[in-house]
């Protein structure tokens, strides 16, 4: 009797997105090798560090659910960081920050327009937009160099709420409504439908194009928010800020159980995966692994996790 329970529990756990098992393995390894990493203080700091990736993963998993992709985060963040640190936009922060978020939304809308109306490939469109934005920032940096991040952002990065860093709280505050929205609202249902069969969604009279467009706008907003957070942590403007955030968000989404057209991982999966990736980064640094070693391990782990997950779910796909 207990054996079937054990068996069922084991298969449930193994069927979970790789992020959960991976996090458990990581935490266990840390407990063995670097127990100080598991102190609540450090864990909260790591959580804070993972928030930008977490926000980007929210946006990325949203577009992935409707079979699209957003690789433009790097460009959006470059522009946001430039606007706020080079003195080119001398506005008080209550105006400047929302403007940056608006910019993110506009980029998302531009992407969405090209993808939905012109039916251009999402990979290419968002990559090209990122190139254009980053390139423009690099070119303009010659005239106005990047400088310090606005004080408010750095404050936000340091702030605490009841002893807990503010930024992760904001992250959860973004996660919960999004999850509810996806599960309960008509938007979520239509998103699922578009992911499951875009053609049928169109022929059923569902607002499938609008939903994809909205997903991209949200993703743009999330990129901008990630940029604000990153800027707050790093303290200075940097053209390369967030350059690989898009691809890491993609990895986090996949490890969190989201695939193109399916949202099996929910909102929690990518969030856990974001935490896992950042924890891994810190863990490897604490082990004294240099940059090359970290890269190699990161690549191996993402590849292995993706392989394991896909192999297990391959039969279900048929």
């Amino acid at each position: 009797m207990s054996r079937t329970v054990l068996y069922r529990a084991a298969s449930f756990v193994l069927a979970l997105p790789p992020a959960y098992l991976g996090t458990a393995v990581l935490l266990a390894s840390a407990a063995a090798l670097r127990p100080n990493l598991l102190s609540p203080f450090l864990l909260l700091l790591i959580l804070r560090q993972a928030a930008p990736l977490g926000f980007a993963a929210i946006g990325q998993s949203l577009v992935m659910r409707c079979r699209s992709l957003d690789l433009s985060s790097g460009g959006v963040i470059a522009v946001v960081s430039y606007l706020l640190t080079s003195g080119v936009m001398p506005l008080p922060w209550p105006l400047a920050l929302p403007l940056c978020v608006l910019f993110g939304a506009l980029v998302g809308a531009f992407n969405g327009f090209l993808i939905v109306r012109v039916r251009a490939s999402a990979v290419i469109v968002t990559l090209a937009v990122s190139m254009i934005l980053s390139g423009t920032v690099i070119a303009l940096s010659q005239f106005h160099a990047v400088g310090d991040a606005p004080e408010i952002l750095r404050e936000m990065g340091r702030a605490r709420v009841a002893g807990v860093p503010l930024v992760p709280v904001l992250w959860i505050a973004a996660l919960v409504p999004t999850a509810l929205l996806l599960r309960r609202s008509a938007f979520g249902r239509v998103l699922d439908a578009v992911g499951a069969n875009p053609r049928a969604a169109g022929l059923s009279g569902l607002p499938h194009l609008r939903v994809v467009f909205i997903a991209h706008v949200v993703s743009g907003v999330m990129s901008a928010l990630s940029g604000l957070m990153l800027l707050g942590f790093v303290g200075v403007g940097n053209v390369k800020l967030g350059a690989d955030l898009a691809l890491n968000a993609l990895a986090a989404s996949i490890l969190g159980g989201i695939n193109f057209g399916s949202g099996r991982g929910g909102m929690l999966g990518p969030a856990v995966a974001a935490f896992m990736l950042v924890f891994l980064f810190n863990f490897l640094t604490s082990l004294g692994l240099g940059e090359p070693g970290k890269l190699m391990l990161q690549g191996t782990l993402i590849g292995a996790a993706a392989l394991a997950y896909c192999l297990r779910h391959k039969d279900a796909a048929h």
Partner: protein
Amino acid sequence: MTTKTPGRTGLTRYTVGLPIVLVLLLAATQADFRSPQNLLNFSGQIGALLIVALGQLFVTLVAGIDLSVGSVMSLASAIAATQAHPLAAVALATALGVAVGAANGLGVALAGVHPLVMTLSTATFLQGLAYVVLPIPGGAIAPALGAAATGQVAGIPAPLLWCAAAALAASLVLRRTRFGAHLFAVGGHPRSAYLNGVRVQAVVVGAYVWCSVAAAWAGLFLAARVSAGDPALGASYALESVAAVALGGVQLTGGVGSVAGVVAGVLSLGLMTNGLNLFGVSPFMRGVLTGALLLAAVSLQRRRIVGM
């Protein structure tokens, strides 16, 4: 006997027109453009991109994408910089290409991992490995390799010959071999191809192997040209090869594409860079213009599906 059908090559007047327009524009407005020195430089500059893009073409034909080409190039250049014997360098680089391509291909075809994720993970791994093999740019390239990449044969610069050889080889495989025909079949509709007796998985693996080997040789070529290895050599080549392929009218959803298109795409990108240099525009604008060109190229590709 017609083997080339317009629907399947993806060539449009924009694909072919763009490089022609650029050539005319540059030839007319910049005297330097017409100089033999510039032409020599040009063929050298686009050589590596052409080889990589031809590799990316095969993967794109089966609806895949290979983001690890940049890291493979870097690692290959690192290998070349640390191997005294030219043949050893070539052999090792080729073996690297085969191994990476096999890994990518098996992950995508057998396990069903999405190409973006699979090639991204190999790219990260290989980049780390490149830093291990060659921590900083430098090293020594065997003189024979350098000569092969920069010399002349009967007055024709070697890079031009390499470009021609690569294009011819790719064209031959695509149009005259069973593998090439099966690439189009798998890209058109993998299930139908399978039911027709095509070994879909083998074809996909083959495409990725071809792509990685091409990237490895491109890395060798580049390293030989500058006589040094560089672990960050291939950084921009992953995206640029995708850009060249997209500009060449190759459909990212698979089944449509041609060597001529890729050549046109590479020419467009190369001419644009060349033009920027000649006009004295800031080199940083290169990214902006490449991006703009890409947007124009994909906007002109008419598709039914929305999204990826």
